[in-house]
């Protein structure tokens, strides 16, 4: 069963289910762009994608994209504008869902894409926020996708590039003036973690087929809470897999 699709393909399928019909989605790159394509072709035919480079689309690009600025993403776009105009929509609360990549996420959903170790002399210098911090702070809800390893799912990030629920105390975002609702889910190679409605600490919601709760907890850098009704993540449907493979024909994102 698990052999019939890759973990990345499952992550894309799960991510696509986070997109509701009619959503304006701040898409980003890599797996989320595939998730958007799958959703548009499945349950969210009226979703629109917004790209920080300055694009709005309905139909996903017809050809493979290495980046959101690739020519196929522009052809047929509904709006080609300045980044600050795309950000204006998000600042107004018009972006329903955002996707953010990250190197490290902590139990409160804070993302680090800047520095591992002391910023003045980091152990690892990561590329930085890009639009990540903007999405984390301004979009109504957001999701991140990550390889499930203890070094990636950590107790507390050493640098909070893109804030989730901060120190986990209730109302942290509102108290600090962050307009958006924060992280809704962490989709990993092993499981889906979710958050309480009003923020706080991530808990294990579903475990991917072929994996166990213990395996997930052991691969998590903190003592992961488990939902009372933890269940198995629904596997990608044939329809979802077909869409994924149509938009990533060479498996550049999902089979490498």
């Amino acid at each position, binding site marked *: 069963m698990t052999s019939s699709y890759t973990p990345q393909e499952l992550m894309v399928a799960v991510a696509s289910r986070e997109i509701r019909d009619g959503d304006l989605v701040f898409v980003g*790159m890599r797996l989320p762009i595939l998730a958007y394509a799958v959703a548009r072709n499945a349950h969210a035919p009226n979703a629109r994608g917004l*790209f*920080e*480079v*300055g*694009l709005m689309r309905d139909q996903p690009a017809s050809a493979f994209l*290495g*980046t*959101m*600025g*690739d*020519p196929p*993403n*522009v*052809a047929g*776009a509904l709006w*080609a*504008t*300045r*980044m*600050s105009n795309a*950000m204006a929509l998000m*600042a107004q609360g018009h972006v329903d869902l955002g996707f953010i990549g990250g190197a490290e996420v902590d139990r409160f959903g804070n993302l680090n894409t*800047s520095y591992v170790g002391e*910023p003045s*002399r*980091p*152990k*690892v*210098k*990561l*590329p*930085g*926020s*890009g*639009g*990540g*911090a*903007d999405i*984390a*702070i*301004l979009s109504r809800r957001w999701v991140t996708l990550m390889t499930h390893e203890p070094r990636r799912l950590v107790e507390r990030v050493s*640098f*909070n*590039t*893109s*804030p989730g629920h*901060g120190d986990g105390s209730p109302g*942290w*975002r509102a108290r*600090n*003036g*962050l*307009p958006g609702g924060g992280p809704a889910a962490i989709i990993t190679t092993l499981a889906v973690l979710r958050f309480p409605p009003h923020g706080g600490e991530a808990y294990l919601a579903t475990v991917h087929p072929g994996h166990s709760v213990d395996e997930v907890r052991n691969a998590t850098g903190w003592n992961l809470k488990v939902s009372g009704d933890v269940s198995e993540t629904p596997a990608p449907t044939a329809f979802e897999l077909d869409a994924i493979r149509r938009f990533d024909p060479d498996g*550049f994102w999902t089979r490498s």
Partner: protein
Amino acid sequence: MAQAIERFVPDGATVAMGVGLEALIPFAAGHEMIRQRRRDLELVGPISDALFDQLIGAGCVRRVTAAWVGNVSEGLGHCYRRACEQGVPREIEVHDHSNFSISLALWAAAWNVPSLPTRTLLGSDILSTNPNLATADGLVQVGAVRPDAAIVHVQRADGHGRAHAWGPLGITEEAGLAADRVIVTCEELVDESVTLSDPNRILFPETKVVAVVHEPGGAHPSPVQGHFKRDHAFYREYAERSRSAGGFDAWLQEWVLGVPDRASYMKRIDVDAIRIKQHRPSIAADFGDE
């Protein structure tokens, strides 16, 4: 190109590049800076897809003011890592931004105000590492960033500095308005009858543009709508070879230092593989006036 860089991008200059994000990155101009051994530059941009990494690795850079520096399809920027983690080939200073905040920093300079307010970056540790960002009354104040020069690659321009670019423009407009001067490199050098046929598509006031360089392929390996696809394989090769300092030096020798100019560089590229062959012309707008 050589004269434009020599004349308008001195050592220590603050230079905005890659303002169209993944598209229209002025690699040819950046490579000329490396050949001229430019030093102590401050690089300004939103995300930088490999170009900033190359300039950092070549030792041209004193400070990076950007939201993201790496390789969009491949991940980390290895020269950027070596500079920040080991000070190799030299120490650099980093002023972290988000994409929105670097745009606002340029709009502040364009409108000539000390800063602009926003809610983005509230709660982010970026506020603690960038001295150009401050919080007051529940808002972040983003300090103005005024580049000495903005360098942009466009599809076409005329000799008077009127540039037409299309596709997603990222922070191109605010970078040009904020900069003291703009250097334009272009795929096609056209007569002003082309640019003036569509004044709404002219990016900058010509009073800001100090040089127009006809440099076909000047954005390779980044994409140019209507001309070139992104050369993914080239980015991948760069990512692999730049993992080690020695590998980067060899790459730099092969593709920059050992290459006299962009024309010679393009001779080594399989241009046919990346050239865009299908055309999608925009439908005309009628500027008739009488």
